[in-house]
C-alpha cells in the first residue's frame, strides 16, 4: 500500500505517540494535527491510527464527533457568526444574512477564491457586547449588518 505523506503530518504526530503507561489520546492528537495542517484530512486517518496503535474506525469515530475538527482544508479566513441566545436576541441573524450577502456564500461553504468560509457558532462568551462574529481568532462585538463590509475588509 502506498501512503501519501503530507508534509508536517509525521512531525505533528511524533509527540502524540503514547509512551506506556500513558494511553493514546485521540482527540489531543487530532487537535495537534489540525494545529499543524489547519485541518485533519480523512486520508490521514490510517497514519494517525498507526502511530496511536488503534484502529482506523476508532480514530474516525472521534474525528466525526467534534465539530471544531475540520476535515476540509480551510479557507484563508474562517468567519463564525454566533447564534447563541444573547446574539440571537440582538438579532445576530441579520448580521449572518448581511455577511452571506456580502461574501455571497452559503453557511458551511467557502468563497470560490478561498478567502472566506462562513459558519455558525453557538457562543463565544462575548454575549455582553453581542452580536458576535469571530474571524479566525479575533472576536468582534456589537456587529451591525451595515458594518459588515468594513469589518471584513482587513481580512484579505
Amino acid at each position, binding site marked *: 500500500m502506498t501512503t501519501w505523506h503530507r508534509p508536517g503530518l509525521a512531525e505533528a504526530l511524533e509527540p502524540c505517540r503514547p509512551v506506556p503507561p500513558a494511553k493514546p489520546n485521540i482527540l489531543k492528537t487530532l487537535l495537534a494535527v489540525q494545529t499543524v495542517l489547519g485541518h485533519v484530512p480523512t486520508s490521514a486517518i490510517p497514519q494517525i491510527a498507526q502511530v496511536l496503535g488503534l484502529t482506523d474506525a476508532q480514530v474516525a469515530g472521534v474525528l466525526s464527533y467534534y465539530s471544531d*475538527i475540520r476535515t476540509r482544508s480551510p479557507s484563508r479566513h474562517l468567519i463564525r457568526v454566533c447564534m447563541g*441566545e*444573547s446574539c440571537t436576541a440582538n438579532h445576530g441573524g441579520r448580521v449572518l444574512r448581511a455577511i452571506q450577502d456580502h461574501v455571497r456564500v452559503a453557511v458551511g461553504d467557502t468563497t470560490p477564491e478561498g478567502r472566506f468560509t462562513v459558519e455558525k457558532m453557538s457562543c463565544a462568551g462575548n*454575549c455582553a457586547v453581542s452580536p458576535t462574529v469571530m474571524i479566525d481568532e479575533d472576536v468582534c462585538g456589537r456587529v451591525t449588518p451595515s458594518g459588515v463590509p468594513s469589518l471584513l475588509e482587513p481580512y484579505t
Partner: protein
Amino acid sequence: MKTTRLYLSNDTSSRAAGAGRLADAWSERPEIQLIRTSPRGAFFLEPMVERDTPNGREAWFNVVPDDLPRIVGGMGGTPVAGIPFLKQQTRFTFANFGTTEPLALDEYQTRGGLKGLEAARSLSPEAIVEELRISRLRGRGGAAFPVWKKWQVAQQTGSEQKYVVANADEGDAGTYCDRMIMEGDPFRLIEGMLICAQAIGATRGYIYCRYEYPAAAQTMRFAIQKAREADLLDFDDYPFDLEVVVGAGSYVCGEETALLESLEGRRGVVLAKPPYPAESGLYGKPTIVSNVLTFATIPNILTSGGAWHASLGTEGSRGTMAIQLGGRVKQPGLVEIPFGLTLREVLDRFGGGMAPGSRFKAVQVGGPLGSLFPESHLDISICYDTFAQAGAILGHGGIVVYDDETNMVELARHFMAFTADESCGKCTPCRVGSVRGREILERIQSGQGTAEDLILLSDLGETMKTASLCALGGRAPYPVETAIEHFGDEFRSKLSAFNLKQ
C-alpha cells in the same frame, strides 16, 4: 515628559468592543503608559479607560482614539466608585476585576490572593471539607450540588492517583463569567484547584477549556507556568501538576462524564451514573469535576471562613451569584450580588431597562435549557429553590432578554434544533425526540402544523423530561414549553386549521 498611567482592559469582550483599537492607536504615544488589566464587567461602558486620581480611579466610557487628550488632561471623567452598575454590587470572587493585571502574581498576592491556600495547607483534609460544609457552597456549573459532599467522597475513596478537573467548557450561550475568570484572574482558579487537590490528595489537575476561548486557554497556560516557577504547585510530600486541555466544540462535553471521556481523547458521550466521578472518574480514578466559578469561589471561603460565606444569600442559596446579563438589555455585563433579589430587581437595577428602541418580551434564565419568563413572572426571587419550584433553573447564571421583535415560534424551533444538533446520541428520548420536536416546530413555523402537533409536542416533552439520561434531553422541553405557555397565541395563529378559518 510626565507620563500618565492609563488602565485599559485586555479582556476578550473589551477588545471586541474596541479596546484593541485604542491600544493600537495609542501605542506610540509617549505621554501615556498603558496598563492592560482585567475588565470591570460593565461591558456596556467598554471600551473604558481609567486613570488614578487622589480620590481613586476615574473612568471614561465608550472611548474612541481621539478622546486621548481629554483623558490625559483629566477632563470629563467619572469616579469609578460612583458608577451605579458597579456600586450596587457585592464583589468577592470578582473583587480584583478592573484593578489588577491578570498575570501579575505579586498583585494577586498583595490583594489577598493565596491566603486561602495558605490556610488550607495548615488544615487537615477533613478540616478543609468541614469548612466547605459550613460554607454551604453549591456547585456553580448548573446542577448546584453541595461541593463538600463530592469532595468528601473523593477524599475517602482510597487511590494512589486522584484528579481535579476544572470544567471550563462554559457551553451555555449567554454566559461568560468562567471566561472572565480565566482571562482576568487566573490565579484564583489555580488557587481553588490547589485547595481541592490538597483536600482530596490529587496529584494532577486539568482545565478543560472550550475551543472558542483561545485567549482564556493561553492566559491559563501562562499563569500555570508562573505558578510553577513560584513553586506554588509543590506540595510538601508529593508533586502536583496542572495542564490546560482544549475541547473541540461539543455542548455535551460540558456534562461531567462526557467531559472526562473527552479528556481521555474519546467521543464525548454521557455515561450513566453511578459510579460518580468522585469515586471513579478520569481513568477510573477518583476525580473532582467542578465549574471554574466554583473553584474561584473557594479561596475566599478558606480565607474568611465557611461561616462568612454561609452568612450571605438565602436559606438554600448561600454566597454570591455571578449573573451575566445579555441580550437586549441596556446595560449588559457581570453582576455579582448575594442570592435573593428578584429577577425584576436585577433587570431594573443593573440591566437599566431595555436597549434603546426596543421593548421587553421575555427573559431566559439559565442558558439554552432555561425557562422563559414574561413580564408578569418577573417577581421571582433569584435562588435555586424558588427556581426549582417554578420548574426553572439558574444554570450557570446567564440572563438573556428578548425584545418584541423576537418570533417565539422561531425561537422555540431554534432551541429544539440546538438540542438535536448537540445530542450525544446515547439515549433515544433525546436523540430521536429532539429531531421530532424540531420537525414539529418547523411544521408549525411553515403554517402546516395542526392543534394535534401541539399535543404531540407536549407528550414528546414529557417523555424527554422523564426518560433522558442527562439534562440536555431532560431540560430541552422547558424553553419550548414556557414559550408556548406564555406566548401561545403566536403558536396557535400559525396552525393550519386556524389559517383555514380566516
